[in-house]
């Protein structure tokens, strides 16, 4: 599972931060070339892969690569 913020598309609008049910995101100090402060999936361990951040992002700036079905079951066994 991976979350990537596509830096050049993000406009720092705050939807991912405020609408993530698990409050995974917060504001980083990094800026893109347009001067927008970028969000950061700081607490990625809490992510449930619900995909709301991807949906809420008006600029297609969040790339959520979900765990493949196979890996997911392995993960469960491991736990």
């Amino acid at each position: 599972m991976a979350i990537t913020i596509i830096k050049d598309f993000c406009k720092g609008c705050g939807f991912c931060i405020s609408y993530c049910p698990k409050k995974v995101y917060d504001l980083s100090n990094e800026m893109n070339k347009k001067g927008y402060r970028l969000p950061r999936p700081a607490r990625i361990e809490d992510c449930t892969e619900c995909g709301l951040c991807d949906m809420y992002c008006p600029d297609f700036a969040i790339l959520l690569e979900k765990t493949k079905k196979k890996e997911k079951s392995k993960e469960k066994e491991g736990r």
Partner: protein
Amino acid sequence: MARQEVRFAGFGGQGLLLAGILLGKTAAIYAGKQAAQTQSYGTEARGGASQCNVVVDDKEITYVGVVNPDVFVVMSQEAYEKLIGEVKEGGLVFYDCDLVKIKENSKVKQIPIPSTNTAKELGKQMVANVVILGAMVEGTKMLDGELLKTCLKESVPPGTEQLNLKAFEAGRALYGKAIQGV
């Protein structure tokens, strides 16, 4: 004082237009000079390139545009890279060093002004434009700072007068500090 061409450049939404209007309005209404302010902006209301140019002169202004500014106030990397080449030889460049990284340039004098962070410390990043305007007026002595403050009080949204005045003063002080450093 002969014709002075000032260019403010950055992104739509940074308040560059207001800064230019304050400068022009002070010159024309309070300082009894001639002034003309023009702007060029693209389609985007936010994030697009935005330029606000002001000409100040003692005699009547025939051409109102700014071709090679004597003074360049810049608040975005994109605007800096695109427009630094047009600044007159020996011109003054006031750049928001929190947003802009400059390149070596012997033709002009580049003065760092941390207007974004200073504005944040004052409580609202929105007044970064007034901070850097204060630094510019202090550095160029184009206009009496007190006249500009009078104009500022009348032009900013009601209730933001004190914050804007503080931002202007902070900008003036920043110029002093910047000069020691440069």
